[in-house]
C-alpha cells in the first residue's frame, strides 16, 4: 500500500519519504537547492509532542515556505502534505498530523489522500502499538544490536492487512473508525487550557491497544509474548550507564514464579483437556543459591489435589547439585541453564533465578518442550 519516492508508475496509494536535509558545513553551497514547501510549519524530530497526534501549536514557523537543501536531500514535498504520519527513524516518536508540516530527514512521513485520513490515523496507532514494536524489534537489523533504528525497508515489511481482507471487514472498519475518533477527540481535548497532554495520550493509547489486538486477531498466548518482549526483553538490550539494571537478570519474585507456574500448568492442562489426567504445580525460589524450583505433579482428574505442603527450600542444595551434575554429564558446548527431571508422577524444573527464566513466554516455551518430550517419548516396553 506504501510506495517510496523512487518507485514510479505503481498504484500504491500512500507515499513514504524522509524529510529534508539542510545544507551542512561540509556541503558545497553551489550544489544546494532551495525547494518550495507546502507550509511554513516545521517540526523538530526531537519534539516531545510527536506522540500519537501533532498539533499546529507544536510546530515553529519558518520565515518562508521554502528551505535550502543539500545535494542528495529528498526533494519530494508531497510527504509534507496532510493527512500524514510522522515516524522517527528511532521508532520512538510517531504521530498523526492533520495539517501540512515539514520536517528534517530524522523523520519519515507517510502521506495519503484525504479520504484515507482514518486509515492513516489507524496506521499511526498501529505503529505506536506494542504489536508493531514486537515485530520490528525481532526483525529489524539494528534494534537490539546497535542503535534503535528501523530502516525504511524494514518498516515496509511490517504486516498491515487492509480491513477489506480481514475475516470480518465490517468489524475491522468499525475498529478503524473507533481509533480515529479516539485520536481525534484526544487531539481536540489537548487544546484545552488545563489539559494534561501526556495523560490524554496515555489513556488514548491504552484504549487503542485492545482495539489493535482485536483487529489483528491476537490470542492471549500471543499477547503474553508481546508483553514480555516489550517489558523484559527490549529494556534489557544495550544497557547504558543510566540503565544498568537489566530486567532479564533481576531475580524473579515469588509472585512471578507463581504466574509462570500457573501459565505452565494451564498450557499443559489445555492439551490434556478431556483426558484422565491433569497437572498442578508449585514454585519456590532460593535467592541464596540463585535458583528456583518448580515441582509439577500429574494426577487423575477425579483424585484429591496434590499437597505441596513440604517446603522445597530444604532440598535446594540438592537441586543445585543435580543441576550442576546434569550440566557436566551431558558435556555439551552450550551453557546448560537448568534441568527438567522426571521422577514418578513428578517433574522437577530447576532454573536460574533470573527473571528471564520466569516470564510467561518462558512458561509457554517450557510447556511446548514438556509436551514435545512426552509426545515423542517411547512408550513403555518399546526400545
Amino acid at each position, binding site marked *: 500500500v506504501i510506495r517510496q519516492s523512487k518507485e514510479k508508475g505503481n498504484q500504491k496509494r500512500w507515499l513514504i519519504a524522509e524529510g529534508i536535509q539542510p545544507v551542512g558545513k561540509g556541503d558545497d553551497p553551489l550544489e544546494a537547492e532551495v525547494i518550495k514547501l507546502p507550509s511554513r510549519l516545521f517540526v523538530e524530530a526531537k519534539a516531545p509532542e510527536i506522540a500519537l497526534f501533532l498539533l499546529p501549536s507544536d510546530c515553529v514557523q519558518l520565515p518562508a515556505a521554502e528551505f535550502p537543501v543539500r545535494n542528495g536531500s529528498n526533494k519530494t514535498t508531497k510527504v509534507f502534505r496532510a493527512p500524514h504520519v510522522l515516524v522517527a527513524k528511532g521508532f520512538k516518536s510517531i504521530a498523526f498530523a492533520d495539517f501540512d508540516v515539514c520536517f528534517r530527514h530524522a523523520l519519515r512521513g507517510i502521506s495519503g489522500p484525504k479520504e484515507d485520513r482514518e486509515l492513516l490515523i489507524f496506521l499511526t496507532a498501529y505503529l505506536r502499538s506494542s504489536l508493531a514494536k514486537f515485530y520490528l524489534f525481532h526483525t529489524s537489523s539494528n534494534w537490539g544490536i546497535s542503535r534503535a533504528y528501523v530502516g525504511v525497508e524494514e518498516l515496509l515489511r511490517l504486516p498491515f492487512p487492509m480491513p477489506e481482507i480481514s475475516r470480518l471487514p465490517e468489524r475491522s472498519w468499525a475498529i478503524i473508525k473507533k481509533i480515529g475518533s479516539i485520536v481525534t477527540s484526544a487531539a481536540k481535548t489537548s487544546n484545552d487550557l488545563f489539559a494534561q497532554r501526556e495523560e490524554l495520550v496515555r489513556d488514548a493509547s491504552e484504549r487503542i491497544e485492545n482495539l489493535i489486538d482485536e483487529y489483528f*486477531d491476537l*490470542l492471549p*498466548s*500471543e499477547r503474553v509474548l508481546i508483553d514480555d518482549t516489550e517489558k523484559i526483553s527490549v529494556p534489557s538490550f544495550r544497557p547504558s550507564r543510566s540503565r544498568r539494571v537489566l530486567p532479564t537478570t533481576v531475580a524473579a519474585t515469588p509472585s512471578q514464579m507463581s504466574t509462570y507456574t500457573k501459565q505452565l500448568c494451564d498450557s*499443559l492442562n*489445555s*492439551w*490434556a*483437556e*478431556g*483426558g*484422565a*489426567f491433569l*497437572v498442578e504445580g508449585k514454585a519456590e525460589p532460593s535467592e541464596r543459591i540463585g535458583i528456583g524450583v518448580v515441582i509439577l505433579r*500429574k494426577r487423575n482428574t477425579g483424585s484429591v489435589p496434590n499437597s505441596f505442603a513440604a517446603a522445597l527450600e530444604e532440598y535446594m542444595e540438592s537441586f543445585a547439585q543435580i543441576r550442576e551434575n*546434569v*550440566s557436566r554429564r*551431558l558435556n555439551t558446548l552450550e551453557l*546448560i*541453564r*537448568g*534441568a*527438567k*527431571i*522426571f*521422577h*514418578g*508422577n*513428578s*517433574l522437577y*524444573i530447576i*532454573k536460574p533465578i533470573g527473571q528471564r527464566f520466569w516470564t510467561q513466554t518462558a512458561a509457554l*516455551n*517450557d*510447556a*511446548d*518442550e514438556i*509436551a*514435545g*518430550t*512426552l*509426545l*515423542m*517419548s*517411547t*512408550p*513403555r*516396553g*518399546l526400545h
Partner: protein
Amino acid sequence: LSIVGDRSGWEGLMAPMLPSLIDLIVSSCGELPLADPLSREDVITDALCLILRRNRRVRDFPFLVYTQLVELDPAVGEEEGRLDIVFQPLVPDESIYFCLECKRLNVVRAGVRRSYANEYVTLGMMRFVTGKYSRGVQHGGMLGYVYDGDIIRAIRSVEKVIRARCSQLGMSKDAVFAKSEIRAGDARIRMTRHRRRHAPVMFNIHHVFHAMALLQ
C-alpha cells in the same frame, strides 16, 4: 534445559491431543476450496496445509505444521521420502509427532472411475508399516480425498486391497477397517492396527475420508 529421568509416570497426559488433532484435520478438510476434477493430490494437500496453518486452533497446539517435508537422508537403497503433512513438536530435534499421508480415491476421468485403492495401501499405509514414516511413535494418519464423494465405495475398495495385502500390512487375515477409537460415531473416520517388525507395540493408522467438492 536438560531433560532427564524416567517419563513413564507421565504417560497418558497428552492422550487427548490426538482426538483434537483429528478433529482439526476433519474441520480443515471442510474448508477446502472446490478442486479441479483432475487435480493431483499435492495441490489439494498444499491448500489443506495452508488452511491448517491459518487456523487459530493450530496456534494453541505445541506443533508446527509443514507440508511436503523431504526426508533428507533416507536409508541406503530406499527412495527419498516426501511427507505430505507433518505435525512437528517444538523440541530441538527433527521429531515428527504425527504424519498425514494424503491420497486420491475414486477419481473419475472421461467417465471412467479409478479407485486408486492400491496406491492408497502400497504407497500410503505401507510407509507407516515399514517404519519409513512415524518410526518412533504409535500413530499416523491417512487422508483419502474421495473425488466422486462416494465414501462408502472408497472404503470398500481400500478394504479389498487391505485384505489382499494383510500380511504385508501386519494385520490379521480378516482385516477390515475398525471404527475409530477416538471418533467412533463418525463414519468418515476409520482405524487400522498394525504389527511392525521394528516395534513390539501395535501401530495405529487413523483414516480420514473426505468427500471432495469439485468444480463443475
